[in-house]
C-alpha cells in the first residue's frame, strides 16, 4: 500500500490560472486530492478560500468536476449526489472539500447528519484555523492564543476536537493529515475511497496570509505543527485508532520540539504571553493523553 511519489498520476488537477495566494496550503491539498483520486472525484465545495482559488467562471483553475454550494449545505448536497450516483450505478467518489468554518461551525449539523446516516462521502476539512476567505476571523478551530480580526488580543477558547467528535459518530474511517506529509494524506484518501459510508479526513493547512508567516515556509510550519505535537496524525478504521508514522515519535513528549519554535514563525502568536504558551502546552499534553488512552482502549 506504500505510496511512492514517482508512481502517482502525472495529470494535474490544480491548473495555471487558479487564484490561490502564494504558499497556499489549500491548493497543495487539492493537488494531493487529484493525485489520490484522479478522475473519480466529484468535489462539493462550500464558501471559503477554495471558492476563490478555482478562478473565474466560465473558466476553472481546477481540473475536477465541482459543485459549488452554499456555506452550510455541503455534506447534504454530497449525500444527494452520492445517492444519485448509486441510483445510476456510476463509480464516482464524492468529496466535500470544506474549510474549518464550513466543517466545524456553520456546516457542523450537516456534517454530523451525513456522518450519522452513513452517506457515501469523503469529507475533507481543510483546516487553516480561521475564516480566511472573509479576512481571518476566528473559528471554533482557531487555536487558543491566536490573533485573528475578531480576537485582537488572542483567542481565549481552545480548538474544538472535530476528529474525535467524528470518531464518536462511529463512522468507518476518520483520519488526520497534514499538507506537509503528502504521501500519508494520499494513502489516507485512497483508503477512504475504498470504504463505503461516511469518511472524515481533517487536513491541517497552515495559511501564510492568516497566520502571518513567510509564504515560502508553509511546509516548514506544517511540519513543525506535527513535530511539536500541536497536530497529531492518526487514523481510525472502524474505530481502531493508530498513530500515523510521522507522528509516532512524538507520543514521547521528550522527543517533541519546543512549542516556541512553532509559534515564533507565526505573526498570529506575536502577542502570546509566557503564561499563554504554558496553557497551550498543557492543551497539547492533554490532547496526546486523551488520544493515547483512546488508542489503548480501542486496540
Amino acid at each position, binding site marked *: 500500500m506504500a505510496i511512492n511519489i514517482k508512481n502517482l498520476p502525472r495529470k494535474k488537477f490544480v491548473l495555471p490560472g487558479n487564484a490561490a495566494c502564494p504558499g497556499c496550503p489549500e491548493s497543495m491539498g487539492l493537488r494531493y486530492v487529484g493525485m489520490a483520486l484522479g478522475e473519480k472525484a466529484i468535489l462539493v465545495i462550500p464558501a471559503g478560500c477554495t471558492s476563490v482559488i*478555482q478562478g473565474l467562471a466560465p473558466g476553472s483553475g481546477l481540473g475536477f*468536476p465541482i*459543485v459549488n454550494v452554499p456555506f452550510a449545505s455541503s455534506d*447534504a*448536497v454530497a449525500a*444527494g*449526489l452520492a*445517492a*444519485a450516483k448509486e441510483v445510476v450505478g456510476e463509480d464516482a467518489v464524492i468529496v466535500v472539500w470544506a474549510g474549518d468554518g464550513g466543517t466545524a461551525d456553520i456546516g457542523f*449539523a450537516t456534517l454530523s447528519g451525513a456522518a450519522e446516516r452513513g452517506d457515501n462521502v469523503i469529507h475533507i476539512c481543510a483546516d487553516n484555523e480561521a475564516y480566511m476567505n472573509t479576512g481571518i476571523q476566528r473559528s471554533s478551530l482557531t487555536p487558543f492564543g491566536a490573533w485573528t480580526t475578531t480576537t485582537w488580543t488572542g483567542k481565549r477558547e481552545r480548538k474544538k476536537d472535530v476528529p474525535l467528535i467524528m470518531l464518536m459518530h462511529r463512522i468507518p474511517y476518520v483520519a488526520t493529515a497534514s499538507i506537509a506529509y503528502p504521501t500519508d494524506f494520499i494513502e489516507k484518501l485512497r483508503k477512504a475511497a475504498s470504504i463505503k459510508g461516511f469518511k472524515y479526513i481533517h487536513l491541517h493547512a497552515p495559511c501564510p496570509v492568516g497566520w502571518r508567516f513567510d509564504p515560502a515556509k508553509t511546509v516548514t510550519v506544517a511540519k513543525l505543527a506535527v513535530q511539536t505535537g500541536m497536530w497529531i496524525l492518526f487514523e481510525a478504521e472502524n474505530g481502531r485508532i493508530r498513530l500515523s508514522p510521522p507522528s509516532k515519535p512524538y507520543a514521547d513528549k521528550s522527543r517533541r520540539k519546543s512549542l516556541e519554535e512553532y509559534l515564533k514563525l507565526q505573526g498570529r502568536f506575536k502577542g502570546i504571553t509566557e503564561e499563554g504558551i504554558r496553557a497551550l502546552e498543557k492543551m497539547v499534553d492533554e490532547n496526546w493523553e486523551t488520544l493515547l488512552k483512546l488508542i489503548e482502549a480501542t486496540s
Partner: protein
Amino acid sequence: MAVRPLTGNYAVAWGARLSRVKVVAAYPITPQTTIVEKLAQFIESGEMDAKMIRVESEHSALAATFGAAAGGVRAFTATSSHGLMYMHEMLWWTAGARIPVVMAVATRTMGPPWNIWTDHSDIMGQRDTGWLVMMAEHNQEVLDMTIQMFKITEDPRVFLPGIVGLDAFILSHTTEPVDIPEQELVDSFLPPRRQPYVFKAGDPLIMGNIPSSLEENMKMRWDIHRSMEEAKKVIQKVDAEWERLTGRGYGGLTECYRCSDAQYLVAGIGAWVGDMREAVDYLREEFGVKIGVLKVRFVRPFPREDILKWASSVKAIAVFDRSVSPGSAGPLFLDIAAHLMASGTMLPIKDLLAGLTGVDVTYEDIANALLRFVSEVEEMGTVKQPIEWYFGR
C-alpha cells in the same frame, strides 16, 4: 384509473411515486409530515424504487434534493412554513443552478407564535427565488400538478425548479375522492428526466464559481426571467396534454369561473378559491351580482396576459390575500395591480387581507366582503379603502 379517498398530502406522495422520483430528502414539519411518512412507506415496502435521505434539517433537505438532481436523477422534497424559510438560501441556489426539482409546500403561517394553520406567508415569501410557484384548489389538482410540475420544470424551455402549494389542513389533511392515474398513463405523459447538465466523474464541469463578468452574471438572472415567460407556454401545453389523457384540465395559469358576463372579479389562490366559487354562486342567485372568480393558479410565472384579458371587461376587482407584506399590501394584490396599471388598465381594485394566521374564512365571509365591495363601487365608482383587513363578521 382508481378513485380513492386521499388527503392532499397523500395525493402529493402519489404524484411523486407515479412520477418515478428516485431520491426523496425531507425533514418533518406539520402539516407537511404525512407526505414524507407516506413516501417512506412506499419506499420501504418496495412499491416505489427510490432512495430516501432522512436529513437533519430543511436546509439539508433541499441541499440533498439539489445534489441528487444535479447528479442526474429526479428528486423531490416537501416542507412548510419555518422549514421553507430555513431552506430559503437553497431555493436561490437550486434555481440559479437551473436544476429542475419539485417541492410540495403545505402552506402554513409563520411564527411567532407557534401556529400550524394555513396562510400563504411561507410560499409567497419565495416569489423572487426563481422557482415556479403554483397553488392547488383541491386534492385532485394536487396530485395532477405534482406530476405536471415534473414535466414543466424538466422542459428545456424552463429548466427551473417548481413548487406545488396546498393549504395546510384544508387540503393537506382533508380527505377527498382522488382519481389516481395508472402508472402507464403517467409514463406515457412524463418523458425520462431532462436537465441542462449532470455532474459526472471525469468530466470537469464547474458550477457556481465567481463570475468573470458581472454582465454575464446579470444575464443569468435575465435568462431565468425569460424562461419564466417561456414557462407560461409550457404550462398551457402540459395542462392541455394532461387534459387529453385524463379529461382533467385546469386552464393553465388561471381559470375564470362564471366570468363570461362578469362585471366584477374576485381573485385568489389556493383552497379558498372553492369558497369563492360558492360565494359567487350565492351572490349571483341572491343579489343578482354579476361576479366571477379569477383563480390564479400560478403565482410565478405571473399570468399577466390572462389577468389583463379577464380584467378588460369588468368594472372592478377584489383580491383576497392570505399573506401581507407589512407596510405595503398583499402580494397577489400588488402583482395584479402593478401589471394592470402597467398595461394601462385602470380600474378600482381592492385588497382584502383575510384568513391570515389561519383565521377561518367561510364562503359567507367572502360573500359578505364582496357585497360591500360591490356596493361601494356601484355607489362611488371607486373603492374607499383599497387595502382592507378582514377579521370576520
